[in-house]
């Protein structure tokens, strides 16, 4: 394992300490709950927004805490949802009279931790509601699972809700808005390599020189199919096709109409999974942009970089998010988080 690590078991706390040291004015670190929170939170005039999920997806979510984004993030260990206690502790510290919103990526572990925490918080009279994100189109047959996974598309949900919360939106309004953004967002990822959790010390899976994994999840869990490694353009084409053709299962066992239609304006994200350099992401972006336009959609804004990673995995995902005037305003509203250039 070639990684910058001291004690593998202290990997997450050391990273969190680094985030706080790097942003003393805006970020506070509460070691007890793996919590990264805004120094100015909670605020009485604003719903507090918290995301949990496992570590190893950075910048999601500990590095997108800040004005216009999250109020706090309390991750678990690498690829493990947070223990219930972290969620309870973080929520109490961030309790606001306007309520607390938990944004949860749809995985069994995360769901359970947040459900248990919610039961505890309810019992103490603390108002908390939960929004599930499930933008991944890779897992088609969700009858076997707890439903689709939340992946890089959760950036759009968080950005929109973060901006809306700054203007004083109510907890119920935020839930409705979040469901709308989630419904308008679809992602598909793929990997060229596996990745190595520090405490495991060996890769979760390995791919041969001529193999790739389509539809990989963000936890290194294998994806839809292991295939022959092909050119950048062919990879993009398959991902865009999967997203465009996708029909999300509905509660009644049917499927919804495709999310994107002719003339729709979309945000287009090409997300790196951690080990892929940004030069390659732009090679992918060039093709994705052309393919999306060719399908009659209009790219309104681009998002190229690392938004939700799997440690040092080489790979990428494509996300489309359909936008309207309200969403455009929310997505371009000012925000300030640890992950930044300047």
């Amino acid at each position, binding site marked *: 394992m070639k990684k910058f690590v001291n004690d593998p*078991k202290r990997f997450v706390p050391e990273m969190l300490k680094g985030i706080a040291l790097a942003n003393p004015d805006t970020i506070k670190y509460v070691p007890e709950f793996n919590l990264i929170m805004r120094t100015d939170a909670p605020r009485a005039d604003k719903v507090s927004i918290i995301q949990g999920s*496992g570590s190893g997806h950075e910048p999601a979510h500990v590095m997108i805490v800040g004005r216009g984004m999250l109020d706090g993030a309390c991750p*678990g*260990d*690498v*690829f*493990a*949802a*947070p*223990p*219930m*206690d*972290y969620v309870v502790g973080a929520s109490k510290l961030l309790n606001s009279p306007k309520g607390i919103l938990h944004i949860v990526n749809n*995985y*069994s*572990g*995360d769901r*359970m*931790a947040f*459900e*248990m925490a919610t039961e505890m918080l309810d019992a103490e009279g603390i108002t908390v509601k939960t929004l599930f994100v499930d933008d991944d189109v*890779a*897992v088609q*047959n969700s009858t*076997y*699972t*707890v439903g689709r*996974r939340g992946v890089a598309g959760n950036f759009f949900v968080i950005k929109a809700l973060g901006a809306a919360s700054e203007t004083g939106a109510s907890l119920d309004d935020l839930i409705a808005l979040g469901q709308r953004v989630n419904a308008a967002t679809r992602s598909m990822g793929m990997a060229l390599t596996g990745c190595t*959790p520090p*405490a*495991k*010390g*060996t*890769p*979760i*899976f390995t791919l041969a020189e001529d193999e790739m994994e389509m539809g990989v*999840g963000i*936890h*290194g*869990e*294998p*994806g*839809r199919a292991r295939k022959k490694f092909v050119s950048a353009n062919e990879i993009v084409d398959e991902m865009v096709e999967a997203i465009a053709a996708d029909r999300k299962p509905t509660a009644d066992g049917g499927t919804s109409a495709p999310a994107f239609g002719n003339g729709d304006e979309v945000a287009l994200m090409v997300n790196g999974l951690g080990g892929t350099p940004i030069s390659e992401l732009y090679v992918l972006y060039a093709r994705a942009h052309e393919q999306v336009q060719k399908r009659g959609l209009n790219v309104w804004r681009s998002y190229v970089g690392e938004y939700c990673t799997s440690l040092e995995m080489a790979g990428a995902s494509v996300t489309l998010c359909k936008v309207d005037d309200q969403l455009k305003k929310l997505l371009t509203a000012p925000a300030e988080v640890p992950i930044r250039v300047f």
Partner: protein
Amino acid sequence: MSSIDATELFIRTIADVAIGNEKYFADLDGVCGDGDFGISLASGFSKVMEQWDALDHSTTGSLLKGVATTIASRVGGVSGAIWGTAFLRASVAAGTKTELTIDDIVAMLTSATEGMKKRGQSDLGDKTLLDAFVPAWEAFAQVARAGGGTAAALQAASVTAREKTEEIKPWVAKRGRASYTGERSCGTYDAGSVAVAMMAEALADAWSRPISVAERGV
């Protein structure tokens, strides 16, 4: 052995398995899952052993509650929730009793099972640790009720659990991260079930040793 002694031996034994197999369980979970099962389990039970003396050892119920709380506070995700719930339910079922009958134990295990199913929205057949745990404790109960003694009952449980890990291997995982791989989970071991089998084997082993050794603990 008194009930509290048995409870202590029980916890120490399964903790040993969890801590000693961190890497193995991580690798098992890595085949179709995300590889965190090993560290989740190991870190949870390490914490239990670290806090051992600080836990309330007065009754089986109080000790199990301490274990439940420690795991829920330290372990994330599915494992924290599922194992934490199981210990909590068992502790509540045990109440303040100091001597446990086989009926008490069955009631505890039944309650733990219900809790896990509810928390995990899962059932037998989903290829989770439930598929090893439930048949294993049912085998335990059967032998124990027939008067076979604890060691023999645990032996029966361990054989059943191990058989189940093989029986469910060809199944499709329907819960946990492994479920996302769909058909590709067929033919792989379920990490949670293997852990249950190894714990049952270690328990059978511990109870088969001369009492004096067993009482000294690990």
